[in-house]
């Protein structure tokens, strides 16, 4: 036990002196790094604008209220589109993610040396690139519209769904697989009767969870032209129609909260 002796009295300390010193040094490095980064940010900031921010924020705030409620008539269709982007995107992503997950899981991959790294690379690439960047890319390839949004969402979701799914596959109970294999089942039958029933609850949970995230992400895809309510947001921002912006933000807030409630209910029902 780390104890410091001062004269006759022994005092308990939480750590040994050497460890304490090492922790202090790590903190020193961390703080120095932060201060360095902050100085770079500070150099690039026009501080006048920052000090002026409360006034600007107050100004924008006063323009944002009250929201223009009548604008809601023009929002129903974009909202419907937003939900479609999220749902269809999630569906397509599942179609692509399931094979990737089976190729990435250690116990189902055909080859740990060649196929698994490739599957992991697909997962990492899909996860590293934000759906907005995918949307930018797809808008320039397939043109602006819903379709670009659907594909962007599905490409972004592959990594997430496949990663969680392959972790679920790796955690299955091998005894059941062995039991099915012992009946003389083929490889496809082993997957269908030994593995799929075990990962089904996890799979359903992951899907609904990702759908919930996708609703959130599809609200902004319109900013780069990929359809949905983001288009209206961009339009309203461009003409500085702040009361409309407020209404759009309220609509987004409602759909996000609603999707979160749905996803939480479904996940609770499954697990």
């Amino acid at each position, binding site marked *: 036990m780390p104890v410091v002796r001062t004269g006759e009295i022994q005092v308990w300390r939480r750590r040994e002196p050497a460890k304490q010193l090492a922790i202090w040094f790590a903190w020193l490095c961390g703080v120095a790094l932060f201060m360095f980064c902050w100085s*770079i940010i500070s150099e690039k900031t026009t501080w006048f604008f920052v000090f002026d*921010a409360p006034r600007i924020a107050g100004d924008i705030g006063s323009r944002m209220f009250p929201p223009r409620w009548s604008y809601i008539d023009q929002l129903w269709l974009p909202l419907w589109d937003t939900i479609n982007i999220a749902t269809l995107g999630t569906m397509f992503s599942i179609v692509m993610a399931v094979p990737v997950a089976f190729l990435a899981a250690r116990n189902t991959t055909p080859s740990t040396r060649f196929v698994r790294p490739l599957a992991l690379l697909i997962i990492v690439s899909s996860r590293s690139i*934000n759906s907005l960047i995918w949307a930018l890319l797809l808008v320039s390839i*397939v043109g602006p*519209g819903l379709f670009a949004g659907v594909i962007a969402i599905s490409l972004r979701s592959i990594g997430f769904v496949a990663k969680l799914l392959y972790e679920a596959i790796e955690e299955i109970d091998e005894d059941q697989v062995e039991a099915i294999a012992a009946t003389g089942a083929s490889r496809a039958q082993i997957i269908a009767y030994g593995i799929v029933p075990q990962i089904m609850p996890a799979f359903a949970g992951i899907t609904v969870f990702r759908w919930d995230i996708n609703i959130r992400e599809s*609200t*902004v895809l319109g900013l780069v032209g990929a359809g949905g309510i983001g288009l209206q947001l961009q339009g309203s921002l461009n003409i500085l129609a702040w009361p409309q912006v407020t209404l759009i933000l309220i609509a987004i807030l409602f759909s*996000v909260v609603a999707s979160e409630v749905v996803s939480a209910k479904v996940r609770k029902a499954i697990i």
Partner: protein
Amino acid sequence: MSLAAQLGGSKRWKRPPLIKSPLLRWLLGIGAALYLAAAFGSLEVNWLRVWEGLDRGWAFVLGFMQPDFVSRWADIKEGIIESLVMTVTSTVIGILISVPIGLGAARNIAPLPVYLFCRGIIAVSRSFQEIIVAILFVAIFGFGPFAGVVTLSFATIGFLAKLLAEDIEDSRAEQLEAVRATGSSWLQLMNYAVQPQVMPRLIGLSMYRLDINFRESAVVGLVGAGGIGATLNTSFDRYEFDTTAAILITIIAIVMATEYASGIIRARVQ
């Protein structure tokens, strides 16, 4: 009636369905089919445009085969460094703010008004996409990385404070009681009872958030909040797909590196 009789005398085993009630199963199935028909109906695909765009898609694939790091290297380097700097700054500021909010949002150590207030902040921060927040902050603070830092710090609060609060609520009540019984002050209680229990997870979550913030810093630039996003957007607009590919590969490589590093650190602290 026995199971065999129900199946018409044959004793064939059937897999149990995922949803037990047949009525609910059919209703959900029909509902899903109707929805899909409506959704596909409203999805207008201009196949001619897609066909024309395939050349560009192919150009992008070729760009990925031969990424061009050289001709715009100065811009890429500046953007990536700015993104990294923003990531570090915003993660640190985010952690500093979310620790008190996380303490306030844990029901077992905070009184009800504080709890509701902190949960409210978390809910607002979680509901809006970073990019929407960034638009507002750019309007308020002006263009530049400062708006990006504020955005990412704000987004960090919703993530970190929520998970920290849940972790504190899950922590062992006995330890809190034991430290409280020694007559400790509130600060001592936090320092000796709560902090040792949640520290490993807090470090893990912070590393994870660092990773997310880097990824997000690549997009807040699209609306003028600094970082690599602006460079990326320009390269898309100019159809310089080889440069785009170089930027994306750099992002992927950095994400992989941070993910690997955070995996090692998390394994050490937990």
